[in-house]
């Protein structure tokens, strides 16, 4: 019993000692006054920056206004956008009314104007507040202002407010840069979206033409498959689809190819029903099948077999396309995936999009060698709450 109490006491004492040591060391490590001032300024600025980067609405401005007011050490601080007061930190309704009036006049100022001091902007009753109005510019035009209210504004405050307004402008522009970077990535993704190859359209139409006289029913069926395939592939909206939809399109594609190949093209499917509703990037499996047909089997007299499988693997779906065709040199595949060769564009496209959407570890895995066929695998997480399907049909 006494032993236990002793241990507890010992633990408590060492904890207190460690805490005290940290405290002493901590204050020494904080450094000189100048260092501390630098730290405080940068810390407040970075706190405000996070809110300004996301865009410029009332909620963000309100969160940014507080650290900025502490930074300037003024009575009240308003951030305005055009004639609107987005946020006012500190200050009551009279200050707000004055800020609104100043915002309206600040919006009309020309760019290039520096911060402006207004003595006794608020002069009613007991409070006398000076106002410093500094314009916020965006792309060369004044879009808003930072207004600081202080009982007795000195030149220092005027200069500091001007700097803060410039800094706010810079942060807003950085925010726009972020937004345009995201938009660029999206555009890139869309540009990478596989295109129907002209080659395929030409071959398909020729194959259909050859049946028109001999077997009109079959020709009609093929035209319908062609219509289905093009409707799916030309779809404008949505970057994602389900495994089931993609398989439907592959079915149409293979029907058209089989019209040309006849018995030389055999296809095997092994699909686990659990993965049919898994979300995958639009047209991410069909190009793999097309690659297998065009580069693996087309050049061979005897044709060959394509095996498409989709397996359920815990939280992931594993999709693979395998052919027993001519295969290619692994070195060439590496070059293709690195973006070097102009052949096998389909493979590169799919690989690039998978990496962009899910991250680098989700790229295509290709196993091949000359004369020994080719196996292309992809692995997609089932859980994708942020990827929405485009519902409905053609647009």
């Amino acid at each position, binding site marked *: 019993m006494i032993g236990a109490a002793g241990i507890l006491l010992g633990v408590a004492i060492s904890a207190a000692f460690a805490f005290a040591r940290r405290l002493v060391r901590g204050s020494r490590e904080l450094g000189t006054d100048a260092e501390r001032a630098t730290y405080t300024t940068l810390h407040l600025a970075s706190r405000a920056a996070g809110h300004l980067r996301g865009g410029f609405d009332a909620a963000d401005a309100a969160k940014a206004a507080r650290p900025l007011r502490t930074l300037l050490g003024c009575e009240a601080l308003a951030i305005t956008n055009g004639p609107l007061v987005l946020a006012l930190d500190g200050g009551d309704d009279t200050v707000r009314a004055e800020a609104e009036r100043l915002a309206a006049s600040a919006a009309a100022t020309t760019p290039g104007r520096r911060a402006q001091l207004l003595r006794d902007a608020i002069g009613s009753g007991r409070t006398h507040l000076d106002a410093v109005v500094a314009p916020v510019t965006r792309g060369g035009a004044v879009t808003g202002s930072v207004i600081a209210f202080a009982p007795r504004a000195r030149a220092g405050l005027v200069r500091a407010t001007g700097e803060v307004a410039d800094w706010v402008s810079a942060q807003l522009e950085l925010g726009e840069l972020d937004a345009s970077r995201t938009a660029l990535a999206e555009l890139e993704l869309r540009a990478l979206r596989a295109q129907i190859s002209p080659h395929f359209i030409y071959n398909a139409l020729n194959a259909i033409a050859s049946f028109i006289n001999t077997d009109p029913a079959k020709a009609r069926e093929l035209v319908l498959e062609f219509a289905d395939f093009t*409707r*799916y592939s030309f*779809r404008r909206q949505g970057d994602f689809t*389900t495994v*089931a*939809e993609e*398989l*439907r399109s592959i*079915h149409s594609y*293979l*029907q058209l190819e*089989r019209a040309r190949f006849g018995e030389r093209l*055999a*296809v*095997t*499917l*092994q*699909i*686990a*029903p*659990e993965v*049919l*509703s898994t*979300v995958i990037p639009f047209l991410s499996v069909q190009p793999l099948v097309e690659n297998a047909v065009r580069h693996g089997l087309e050049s061979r007299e005897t044709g060959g077999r394509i095996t498409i499988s989709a*397996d*359920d*693997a*815990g*939280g*992931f779906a594993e999709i693979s396309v395998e052919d027993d065709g001519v295969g290619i040199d692994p070195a060439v595949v590496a070059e293709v995936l690195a973006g070097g060769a102009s052949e096998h564009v389909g493979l590169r496209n799919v690989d690039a999009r998978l990496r962009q959407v899910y991250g680098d570890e989700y790229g295509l895995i290709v196993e091949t060698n000359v004369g020994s066929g080719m196996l292309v695998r992809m692995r997609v*997480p*089932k*859980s*994708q*709450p*942020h*990827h*929405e399907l485009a*519902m*409905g*049909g*053609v647009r």
Partner: protein
Amino acid sequence: MNAALGYVSIALVALATALIGFYGLRVSRTTSDFYVASRTVRPWWNASAIGGEYLSAASFLGIAGLILLSGSGGLLFPIGYTAGYLMLLLFVAAPLRRSGAYTIPDFVEARLESRSARRLTSVIVIVVGWFYIVPQLQGAALTVNITTGLPPWVGSVAVAVIVGIVVAAGGMRSITFVQAFQFWLKLVAIAVPVVFILLAVTDGAPTALDAGDAFPASVGPESLDVYRTVSLLVALLLGTMGLPHVLVRFYTNPDGDAARTTTLIVLGLLSLFYLFPVIIGLLGRAFAPDIADSGTADALVLLLPGRMLPGLVGDAVTALVIAGAFGAFLSTTSGLVVSLAGVISQELLGGSVRGFRIAAIACSLVPLGFALVTASSGLAGSVGLVFAFTASTLCPVLLLGIWWRGLTARGAIAGMTTGALLCGAAILAGPAIGQSVPALRTVLELPAAWTVPLAVGVTVLVSLLDRRRVPRGVDHLLARLHVPERPSTAR
């Protein structure tokens, strides 16, 4: 009892499970039946699979045992187990399917935009899963011990090892078909004995059984305590929606509507199934009151056919029941191990195939350890406690996350922690406290009635105080959860 029959039926069920798991979908197809392959899982299949996974040792053995022991109080379990799906149908099934999240932690992260809320949810999901596996293994121990005479631990080890190996080797690839098969196996295995026994007992004359024999008024509905009833029903109704393997099955549905249809069919299938354990419980009260001992009551389903049916018929029906019971242990355990291994491998092991295997082995061995060191205190009761824990932790977050835009990550974390601590303390320390303060015994035995409201209250309160941190994307996400999909016209 004939031990050889026990061995044979256990081996057959294990073999059938593994075979369907490995080869169920290895059947090759050619393009001509492409549409068959690309057709999504039909609600009927999926509903059977959900039923197969859901009907555990507690349903197959526990309910009859509880009715034998405590009379009509035991009836609340089948009612609660089934009605839990009604809650799921009304509040959760379709929105969750539309969310695109695959597991509960995925949903929490997408809804609350918080990694820490996700981690806490994962931990709770794993704990719930492990403690749900323990009664399955205890049921296996009981079954093996009674039917073959081997020591009890053999049964637990056998189920854990079979499931661990099959799941780790990728044998649950076609899990939907395995589980659907298990459902129909269980239904047949419990319905056939009931029909045979009823025929034998009544000899064709429906009046030969006097209800008063089986159910004296002292154990009728009159004897039920209001608090016990409410608390048990709260746990069972709300606990179902947080079970880790349930959400995964809804993901197999192509859309929210199919998720609803599936749940509706599940309700029908479960209602049908639960008729039979109840009848066995009643027959047990009338004809085998000597089994009514807390150690053996759970074996009533296994013992009754042998007693009531003569010779060969009795042996054959007993073998069928053993097969059904093993189906129950294997299916529930493997369903849980698959979903838990998915969560663990994603959370800790980077989501690799190897990580999934390691996690699958761990998920079979940890509960095995618990099952070996603890003694079963009634299968239905232990599963009831797991439901109470789920209802106090995951259910508030899930329900509020779907239906209340004000939920924040801090609120969810505070609510889950409160629920977990209170309910966990009641379960762990309850028996000890109940000994010294008998007045608190019932309150601690069935904690859901007070832990669930407290967890919900804390979640709401903390979220309201933290109003500024409502996630930005919440309106968009909620719209997605609740707006029905437009019918797909791309055909």
